[in-house]
């Protein structure tokens, strides 16, 4: 069980620039455990850039991002992006077995349980090249279930999932937040969760926007 209302991430006056154009400036954000934010904005507003920047995949040009400590180690968020990061030449099981999550490798039992949960119980030993796009996304989603992470960063997590899969994922996210996890997500489709969903809108200068 994760303890609730502990600060996870603090962002001060963050600004991200793509070549000459500022995507956004002066973005402030406080994310505590048990909170979920949906990042909204037009196409090209910088939603993905913000999420990648928070993970450390994109350099920030202004401001600072502070992940809080957890057992003396800074928290590593679990990033689930546009690309599923599933190797076609490895089997479904190997894809999870040999892929580090949160600085650790996990063992067979946890992985098998997660694969059953995402509905790939029958595909353990099939090579990932034979999976459909939605199934490959499910392999990537299994990583969320395997690792005990304090924060999920989900970039368009509902892409390529079927209707049932979307409902299932909404359930997973809700129960994770109820357990004290914190989530940042972007989505183009309406998200219905049974927890309070806070909205963070991205505009060019966050100061002018209240």
């Amino acid at each position, binding site marked *: 069980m994760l303890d609730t209302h502990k600060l996870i991430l603090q962002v001060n006056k963050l600004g991200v620039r793509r070549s000459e154009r500022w995507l956004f400036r002066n973005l402030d954000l406080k994310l505590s455990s048990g909170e979920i934010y949906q990042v909204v904005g037009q196409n090209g507003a910088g939603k993905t850039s913000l999420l990648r920047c928070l*993970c*450390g*995949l*994109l*350099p920030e040009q202004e401001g600072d991002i502070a992940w809080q400590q957890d057992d003396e180690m800074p928290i*590593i968020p*679990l*990033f689930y*992006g*546009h*690309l*599923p*990061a*599933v*190797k*076609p*030449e*490895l089997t479904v099981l*190997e894809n999870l*077995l*040999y*892929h*580090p*999550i*949160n*600085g*650790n*490798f996990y063992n067979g039992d946890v992985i098998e349980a997660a694969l059953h949960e995402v509905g790939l119980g029958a595909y353990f030993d099939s*090579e990932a090249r034979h999976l459909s796009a939605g199934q490959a996304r499910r392999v990537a989603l299994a990583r969320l279930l395997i690792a005990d992470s304090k924060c999920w960063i989900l970039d368009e997590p509902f892409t390529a999932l079927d209707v049932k899969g979307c409902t299932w994922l909404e359930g997973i996210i809700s129960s994770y937040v109820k357990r004290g996890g914190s989530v940042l997500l972007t989505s183009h489709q309406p998200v219905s969760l049974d927890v309070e969903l806070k909205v963070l809108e991205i505009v060019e200068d966050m100061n002018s926007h209240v």
Partner: protein
Amino acid sequence: MFKRLLKRELLRQWRSRQDVTNPLIFFLITVSLFPLAVTPDGELLASISGGIIWVSALLAAMLSLESMYRDDYRDGTLELLLLQSGSPYLVVVAKIISHWVTTGIPLVVISPVLAIMMHLPTHAMTALLSSLIIGTAILSLIGSVGMGLTVGLRQGGVLLSLLVLPLFIPVLIFGASAVTAAGMGLEYSGQLAYLGAYLAGSIALVPLASVAAIKISIH
């Protein structure tokens, strides 16, 4: 931790054996074309065989560099590995080792066959093998930096060669001259020592440079 990263790389290479055999076949073909094109005369071949084998091995190793990070970059694995593995340096080192084991070692293993075909004097065989072992390891190390820098580009092939070739040249000079010297019955430990020094320097610096290069590509 490191063992699983390495196992992942080797397993991947094993599953895509086609990519691994390509440089080997290239090596085999280029070397065996020389007697046809130049001369089948044993004496002449013996004097140039060291250089030919070395140049072909270098080009074959360069051919295979692309497979190092390209696939992982395209499907998003590379960025997750950097983020989630705890230490990006381990990821890079695992990739370099697996590249060397799957490309460098096979090149070294088949080189004696080609050496016999090229009439390389038998007393130069040790020099060829030892210089190639060290040389291919250096190629994998330096190639990892070049590949890390160019992995984000759509047509990175030419740039990759331009970036890494100057760094490969000293390896080629010392490697080939070790074989030639041994063929003439001279001492070649000096050349090997230079190669060893180059290897030690690369081992120390390459992981840092590779991680920095990959970070630039991912941004």
